[in-house]
């Protein structure tokens, strides 16, 4: 205990409590299957079905295709506008390099996230 009592008349009791506390802290209980018992009693993890990832990929692909078919000129317009904005700026070689590096880092981080060890 951090605080010590000022009452010296209780020294023997204080010493006895300190000794008892020390003995308590020194005592180590072997696990003896306790952790396994706790883990077995935990609620089952929410298992996502195996088809979830391919199904999501397929849905995203369908969504992309739907947008492309529904708005045929949309993608071309977006690319044209982006190029116009980019080419309108004075882009240095260092700027292009920084953008490439940023894209590589973003791709690497996304890959690391997807392939992380669960």
């Amino acid at each position: 205990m951090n605080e010590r009592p000022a009452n010296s008349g209780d020294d023997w009791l204080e010493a006895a409590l300190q000794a008892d506390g020390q003995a308590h802290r020194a005592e180590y209980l072997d696990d003896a299957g306790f952790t396994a018992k706790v883990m077995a009693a935990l609620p089952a993890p929410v298992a996502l079905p195996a088809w979830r990832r391919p199904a999501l990929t397929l849905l995203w692909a369908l969504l992309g295709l739907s947008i492309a078919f529904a708005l045929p000129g949309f993608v071309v317009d977006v690319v044209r506008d982006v190029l116009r904005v980019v080419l309108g700026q004075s882009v240095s070689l260092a700027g292009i390099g920084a953008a490439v590096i940023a894209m590589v880092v973003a791709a690497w981080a996304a890959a690391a996230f997807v392939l992380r060890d669960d």
Partner: protein
Amino acid sequence: MAEPSLSDAELIARVVVGDDRHAFSELVRRHQSAVRTTLRRLTSGNHALADDLAQETFMLAYRNLASFRQEAKFSTWLYRIATNAWLADARKRKEELLGDRDADIADDDSAEHGDDADGGADAERSASLSMDMARAMAVLSDAERAAIIQCYHNDLSHEEAAQVLNCPVGTLKTHILRAKQKLKTRLAAWARD
């Protein structure tokens, strides 16, 4: 896979973010002894009950881990859950426990005086004091026993112990003072030795 070298905070983050069961089992393995020994003291040596309450403690910790703000040590938070679990259980068993305990203490008292008269080696004396202390602790109220255990056995400061017991520091000090008065009366024979 949870590595043993990871800190409690890192393991907790893994459990909260990714429901990492390995990380949680490492936390249980690390703290099971302290929680179980504390509960054994609180339950006056009822090992089966202590282990049941310890299991309940870790289950509650798992469910509420996201709410753990890391303002206190993880062990202090566990002591708080364990103490609350014990108090809730003790309230349920109050009448039955009091009856049994009084009978046990009365039986034990007749045996302990014989041991004192014999005296003996230091180890014997220490073991005898430990047993007497355990018996004396059993006469304390739940709050008094919990206060003594958190401050002396778990080595918490008054502030930490008050947090564990969810009471003001002043109340905790009152519990300790009253507990010491009872222990002093109960262990009076040791004061003269």
